[in-house]
């Protein structure tokens, strides 16, 4: 079962494609809560790091993660200039609840809608939550699947570590 996969990878390597540690953001459009289309490659935080977090209104650990970060977000921003981008993968069943949930929760994140999971697929996200750290050059330098209590501290250490570099 694994053989064809190994062959594929061997083939790719042999023709000179290198596995890049630093991935770029894909050329995919999402929607803003105001109904505008937005290409995710246009994300910009003036050379400061960004965190992209995939979540959904029905996902308990996702909300736990984003609520935990919300409490320390002001401090994080002051100390590192980081910006958090929350990508909701709610489809049309629960999409209309994203804005009420976000606003009622007092989140200060930039929130986008990926209602047919185009961005989710392009970024290799199979389950939510899934968090990516983007450096000042717009490259993905770290990513993490799932959320357990306390994981936000590891994320913050990662943010600090790319600032030191």
């Amino acid at each position, binding site marked *: 079962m694994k053989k064809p996969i190994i062959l594929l990878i061997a083939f790719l390597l042999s023709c000179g494609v290198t596995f890049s540690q630093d991935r770029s953001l*894909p050329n995919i459009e999402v929607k803003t809560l105001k*109904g*505008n289309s937005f290409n995710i490659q246009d994300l910009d935080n003036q050379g400061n790091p960004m965190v992209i977090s995939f979540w959904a209104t029905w996902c308990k650990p996702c909300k736990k993660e984003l609520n935990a970060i919300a409490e320390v977000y002001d401090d994080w921003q002051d100390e590192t200039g980081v910006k958090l981008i929350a990508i909701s993968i709610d*489809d049309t069943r629960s999409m209309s609840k994203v804005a009420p949930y976000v606003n009622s929760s*007092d989140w200060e994140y930039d929130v986008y809608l990926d209602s047919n999971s185009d961005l989710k697929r392009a970024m290799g996200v199979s389950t939510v939550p899934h968090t990516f750290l983007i450096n000042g050059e717009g490259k993905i330098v770290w990513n993490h699947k799932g959320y357990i209590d*306390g994981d936000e501290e590891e994320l913050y250490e990662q943010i600090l570590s790319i600032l030191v570099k």
Partner: protein
Amino acid sequence: MKTQALTILLIICSFKLAAQNSEIHGDFSLTLQSYVEDETINAAAADEVVLNNAFLNLIYSSNNFTVGLRYESYLNALLDYDSEFKGNGIPYRYATYSIDGLEITAGNFYEQFGSGLIFRSYEEKGLGIDNAMDGIRLKYRIGKGISLKSFIGKSRTFFTYADGILRGIDGEIDVNETFGLEKQTKYILGGSFISRYEQRSNPKFIIPQNVAAYAGRLNILNGGWNYYGEYAYKINDPINSLQESEMNYASGSAFTNSITYSQRGFGVTAEVHRADNMLLLSERDRTGKAYIMNYIPTLSKPHAYTLLAIYPCATQAMGELGVQLDLFYKFKKGTLLGGKYGTKINLNLSRINALEGGNSMLNDNIDHTPALLSFDEELYFSDINLEINKKVNKKVKYNAVFAHQKYNKDFLEGKTPGEYGTLSSTIGVIDLSYKIKKGHTIRIETQALFAKEIDSVSKKQEGDWIMALAEYTISPNWFFAIQDMYNYGNEDESKRLHYMNINFGFLKGATRFEIGYGKKREGIFCVGGICKVVPSSNGLNLSITSSF
């Protein structure tokens, strides 16, 4: 399959030579499950002893060019997958190129028009759903605020494609952007059309070879307000039957309307939707999820706690009328109800009924069209629930849910009327987290469901349930959980069973390993708000997911 893969690899190689900013990445998932026979829960042992589902996605991108493929392996598929998923292959591969506002995709793609009422192609691996299209898709941005999408292709069903050839076009215009209006109120208009060609082979009736559906939508936004409405119409699509009484020449329709208002600390959403004879299939006369090509979202809250989701609502595309209301509120910090950190609540109400007299029917014997807004007495589902989310202090957080649900089991599970009737259940959930020290957290979840039947029924009922879960997590790498569900109130005493599960996992960055052992209950499994019926199982499972 092999030639396809080689062709793609050759393309990748040749592009690699020409391009500088090239990258390759993807993700991988493997699930192994063993099944032990257990007569007490009707779980069957698989002949293969161990079953396996796995896939690997590879995406190669270089400037405006992207190619991707997915290798899938089902040796053999897990019991809760359709057995048509069998063997290995590369059922998903595509190439996309974009230039001057035009994006061209050849091969497989996923697409959705509007809210999906007439067309949605998507995948949900956890549920074994994948109706990717195979064909050509063009997306074009015409000047400011106008975008067009069109495609032609066939819809994936397991390792093959449905017979129907689908053609679709969708346009959207952002009125403010196009006409340069600097108004506070924003208007977005959209329309879509889809048609299916399939050869007829009915010797008795002349049924159409080309059938179609169309939809129009309007989105108005102003400050904290957001209105979305969509109406869809399906031109009649009779089945290939020789029986006059089975023929239905009626058209179908559906609409969805939602209005939302939110501001800091407060949000509300109200929705109404209706579907009548609105099942759209990628191949005539087929049954099963794999052939459904439209999506009518279920009008109830997707619950994440087990006992709240044990009797879940499912959309009846053939006919239903539903309403839903959601209220979100955060009691501010420092107030009586808010405490030190604030308290969040979500109240959700939903109710879904049959259409009066059933869905539209038209043939020589019957001519029925249900009234537009008339609730039939037959209730499919109702749910009233309140969720409270609170951080008590630096160590303690909890989430509590109280719900009252009504579930028309006879109808929603296709039983004979009078077998199980409509269940009325009251459910309570308390989910408490306690932080022991930095990185170490224990979480205790307790749930109870108290059920009663409204109608007189012939079959023995499942009755009351309780559930408890304890989870210990060590951030950022480890988790351990043990849970037990106990059907202590089953009217059939031999079915008062425990469903015990143990799970252990290791996480590192983008890789996750999980091992579990235990009994799974026969029932409905929901991920991301979509549900399917899964058989009981008893055994060991191993899953590995990773992304690179």
